[in-house]
């Protein structure tokens, strides 16, 4: 019996701490996402908001749209995974040509 009570204590503590952490997450997320997005281009609207305002119409279209978006995103990720760009730290002399161009594009401000 005493063991069971122990177990109940553990449950109380465990669920309590879990909920505690999660609630903190909630606050934290509301906080950081509240910060207004400066650069427009950075915004990532996962689907068109206005088409969502009227949820009765064109649902299929929306679903399709999302599916495609997802597909594209995935594809993109795949490429990331299989055709990584070279990284500064590992440049070889031969990759120099490209870099030089890049640098000219960026301008000196960055580096």
């Amino acid at each position, binding site marked *: 019996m005493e063991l069971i009570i*122990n*177990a109940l204590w553990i449950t109380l*503590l465990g669920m309590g701490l879990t909920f505690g*952490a*999660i609630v903190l997450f909630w606050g934290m997320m509301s906080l*950081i*996402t509240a910060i207004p997005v400066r650069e427009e281009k950075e*915004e990532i609207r996962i689907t068109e908001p206005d088409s969502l305002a009227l*949820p009765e119409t064109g649902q299929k279209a929306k679903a399709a749209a999302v599916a495609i978006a997802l597909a594209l995103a995935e594809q993109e990720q795949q490429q990331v995974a299989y055709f990584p760009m070279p990284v500064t730290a590992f440049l070889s002399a031969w990759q120099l040509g490209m870099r030089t161009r890049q640098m000219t594009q960026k301008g000196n401000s960055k580096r």
Partner: protein
Amino acid sequence: MNLGEILPQLLTGFTSFSLGNAFMLLVGGILIYLAIAKEYEPVLLLPIGFGCILANLGMSVYDEHSFLKVIYDAGITSELFPLLIFIGVGAMIDFRPLLAQPKMVLLGAAGQFGIFGTLILAIWLGFPLNEAASIGTIGAIDGPTAIFVTSKLAPDLLGPIAVAAYSYMSLIPIIQPPIMRLMTSRKERLIRMEYAPRPVSQTVVIAFPIVVTIIVSLIAPGAAPLMATLMLGNLLKESGVVERLNKAAQNEIINIATLFLGLAIGATMTSDKFIFDPATGEWQLRTLLVLGLGLLAFIMDTVAGLFFGKVMSFFSGGKINPLIGACGISAFPMAGRLSAKMAQDEDFDNFILMHAMGANTAGQLGSVIAGGVLLAIVSTMM
């Protein structure tokens, strides 16, 4: 030379082979069958099954000179394998759906009740605390978390617990739907959720993994390594400036770790730990109990998740579809996919995929935290 001395040595393969071993070969074969024919988490069940076969042919992690012992010590005892896998998983998770609807995160906590419910049951069934807690982690419904905690509390149970965790995870589409139908009314399942996510800036997406790591390390240090590696992987992906490392995490690192993790865990499944221990002369019924309790853990998680979903639905004035509560258990991303599908089955135009994924990623976070908290509490009591 003295054949009388040598022959017995050469025949150890046969002489040391018991009926129990034969049975375990069958078990290993079944796991491989499920992996290949049914595609139950093949990347894990296939290596586990093969490892189980090797364990019962004299290559278990308990044999001093077995190469699988070397791998076990290098990756399980050192805790590295589950953490390496988490680096890769983190690099494959996208938290945008969650960041777009912060309150979804609450569902990630409710879905962990199964962990503790199972622990209580296991204690009641007479399991020692460390084993009971390990069994509970099946309720985390997250392989690496369950393995990480179990490898510290009750390594002998790694086999059955990992098998239960991954098998049931593949059975989610069979386990959850009946419970969903039972606990939710058609009216509830028909609820459509408005989807007007806040725009999520890249800055936020990058800051998130860092902040999460800090919060968890402070509140639940036990979960710190798991959460830290998960978030590291996510940061590698979202930063966008270290594609080389992102690629390594998503491929080399996770693939190699997964293969050897599976083999090493399978190699713990010797017949004397699974069926009958000649030394103590007792049958290992606990193995069956673990499998049974694991199933209960999944069910309790789902029930708790759905219940909490209904509560949130009530307080939101019916704006939330309780089905997404069932994604809080983690089992990422199958659970999320399933809830969305259930809603669509009722009404093809009801599209709650993004909400479900939000709750599902929240479940992933909740599982790691709950697992870590459990580890911390039980460690202090031992």
